[in-house]
């Protein structure tokens, strides 16, 4: 276990692993997302209250889940970089930020498009929506801080600190529908006990969740290779890596 952990600190190991994993993640993501989209759009039955508008859940819920999952990954990777001074931790955090920001935009925009026919408005200052918007600002802050410093190491440390402080927002997003009166519906899938969604609707949704995770894995692997190369330009192993 620890040997594996230490291996993750090695730039050539991270680079070659990411290069090997990316096509697998991408292929599996194409299959699972493809199934989720086709089954979710064409075969899942309409909701008895929301009709076909409920199908927005197949892109909204995985987008929202990815926005918080990627943020947590970024904060943990940043913490590893700060505490153990492992450069690869900062590289993972840097690779996560733009991907997470894009999924947060997807969650906010699709939530807004779902809100109009269901709530009668595109936006409300609801706890769930507001905390998700704060998450987008945190991503923008992390991205801006990283590029604000000429010294990349200082940018790494500053953005990792912001990511760690901002992680407090993740449980706030999750429990906002429990702690406060919210327009947003409570958890449907991620809750203790049986999910309150029919199996015919649930399977494509689970497939979309898995597909988005795999897609994140693929894009992370591609970006991570770039991050490693940018940080290790002078290393001897890079000559062999960029030849192929």
């Amino acid at each position: 276990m620890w040997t594996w952990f230490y291996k993750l600190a090695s730039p050539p190991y991270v680079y070659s692993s990411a290069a090997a994993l990316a096509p697998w993640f991408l292929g599996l993501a194409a299959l699972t997302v493809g199934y989720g989209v086709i089954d979710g759009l064409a075969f899942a039955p309409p909701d008895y209250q929301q009709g076909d508008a409920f199908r927005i859940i197949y892109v909204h819920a995985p987008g929202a889940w990815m926005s918080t999952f990627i943020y947590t990954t970024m904060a943990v990777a940043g913490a590893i970089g700060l505490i153990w001074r492992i450069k690869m931790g900062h590289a993972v955090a840097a690779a996560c930020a733009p991907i997470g920001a894009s999924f947060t935009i997807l969650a906010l925009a699709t939530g807004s498009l779902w809100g109009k026919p269901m709530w009668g408005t595109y936006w409300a200052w609801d706890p769930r929506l507001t905390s998700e918007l704060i998450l987008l600002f945190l991503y923008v802050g992390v991205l801006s801080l990283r590029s604000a410093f000429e010294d990349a190491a200082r940018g790494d440390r500053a953005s990792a600190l912001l990511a760690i402080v901002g992680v407090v927002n993740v449980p706030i997003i999750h429990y906002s529908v429990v702690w406060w009166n919210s327009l947003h519906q409570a958890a449907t899938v991620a809750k203790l006990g049986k999910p309150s969604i029919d199996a015919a609707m649930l399977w494509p949704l689970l497939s979309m969740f898995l597909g988005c995770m795999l897609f994140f894995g693929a894009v992370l692997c591609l970006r991570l290779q770039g991050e490693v190369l940018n940080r290790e330009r002078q290393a001897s192993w890079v000559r062999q890596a960029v030849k192929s």
Partner: protein
Amino acid sequence: MTGGGFWEMGGYARYVWPCFALAAVVFAWNLWSARRYLAAARLRARRALAMAASEGDEHQL
């Protein structure tokens, strides 16, 4: 599918389809920008290696 066929989405087409279109854009952008980022990093690394090699040749002369 409720009445009206697949593309009408039971009257919610103008909300459902833009969501899926945006998701496609987000997926495509992520893939494109990650590949572009990696290609740019590879190019920078090659340039740095070439520069280091030419500086080494100058020292030898």
